């Protein structure tokens, strides 16, 4: 579904999308990295519809994913890091007191 515009010359690293290893180019955003394997959808809305990265610049909040255990992260603003665990986000995440960073 998605094609890269140019071939990379950079270093590759491994991240995990839904538990599956993914070879990606260092320095890319999580949104760009998972566009292919995610078939374009990276979360569901509270009504259950599939949503995916849209603006790619931090404005629309359509690209929210759970990254290294933290929900509601904007995948388009987050750079990939070796060993990163990236999950699709289903619906609205829970935000109980335990989750807060106090």
């Amino acid at each position: 579904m998605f094609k890269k515009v140019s071939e990379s010359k950079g270093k590759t690293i491994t991240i995990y999308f839904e538990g599956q290893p993914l070879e990606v180019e260092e320095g890319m955003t999580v949104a760009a990295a998972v566009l292919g394997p995610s078939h374009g959808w990276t979360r569901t809305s509270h009504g259950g519809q599939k949503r995916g990265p849209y603006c790619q610049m931090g404005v629309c909040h359509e690209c929210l994913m759970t990254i290294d255990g933290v929900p509601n992260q904007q995948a388009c603003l987050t750079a990939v890091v070796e060993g990163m665990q990236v999950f699709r986000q289903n619906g609205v995440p829970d935000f109980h007191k335990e989750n807060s960073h106090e």
Partner: protein
Amino acid sequence: MSSKRTAGAVVIGGGAVGTAVACYLAMGGVDVTLVERGEFAWGTSRRCEGHVVTYDTPPGDYSVFCKTGQNLFYEAQKFLPVDFEFTPEGIGLLVDDESHLETVKENYEGKKKEGYDVTLWDRDELRHREPNIGDKVLACLNFNNDCTLNPMRLCFGLAKHAEANGATILSRTQVTSLRTENGRVSGVETDKGFIATKNVILASGVWTPQLGAMLGVNIPIRPRQGHILVTERVKGLLSKAYVEYGYLLTKHGLKRENVTPDMDKFGVAFVIEPSSAGTVLVGSSRRFVGMDIRPHPAVMRAVAERGNHFFPTLSDMRLLRCYAGVRPATSDELPIISTTHVPGLFVGAGHEGLGISLSLITGKIMSELVRGETPFIDTSYMSIDRFGFNPPALPVGETSA
């Protein structure tokens, strides 16, 4: 739209008030046309919070009026064709100041005697119910019949129901002038053509004065700005809507202790409402700055700081956006629900911060006034006459066709 139309009554304005007026008129058998220059909820009704409340009116006629108005939502929920996210979970009044505690307790006893369903949570009970509440909050007075809803969906539902009952709905249609013949209303000129009618209801929020002026009726309504912040989507931050007790002081323009100069200057008082989509609305402010509806960073900051005081966890959350709206304010905080001295011209506007809460009851009363009936509840103190700016309004029955 064809160039010539006729209607039994024309309602100008598709906000909560206008759509409610059109809905009750249509249900009352009047051939009504609703004219809105934008889409439904184009004005203040899409820039507000959507609480249907009784917590802020001291005992008396107006308090009973608000309560009666609130009951209509429990009925409307059954017949409106749109799910307007009606949430009758009650609203809590949060107290963070020792010195308010006594007044709040008296209020509790008083409201209970008046038959209100209220409960008082002490500090422990509140913490148990809302684990994310700030340490400085001392108590919460719950108004268990107060409710929240989605104002845009309410407007759509009312417009749809009006249509189903025979109303004509004209969106994207702007009223450019009002006409009279032999001193009584004869029609409405719009950018899409003329509508001949003997009854016009101005339900145009902050724009009502401009429309009144077209027929020489002086309608004293001023825009009072308010800000709302919208957070990212989360579950479990809070279980229902809350308002700080200080909101009542801000609303009535009274001095408050323990707030920053900016909060004082911008009239910031904490209001919070979880939406059904997961975002949380945090408000609000109150100031007179004309028709300005741009969100201002300094006001946003003051609102956010106040929010953190009551729910410190908010500081961990991202804001998605902010919007501001202008409340249609009168000088005595009462709406104008009235006939005028011009036969066939009615005013239903100026509800300030209660336009959603009082939309249905305004619609019901307006439908009665237009049909020449005496309103089912006393509204004489909401007459435009109280300002003394116009010749006396016509008695009920004499304005209708």
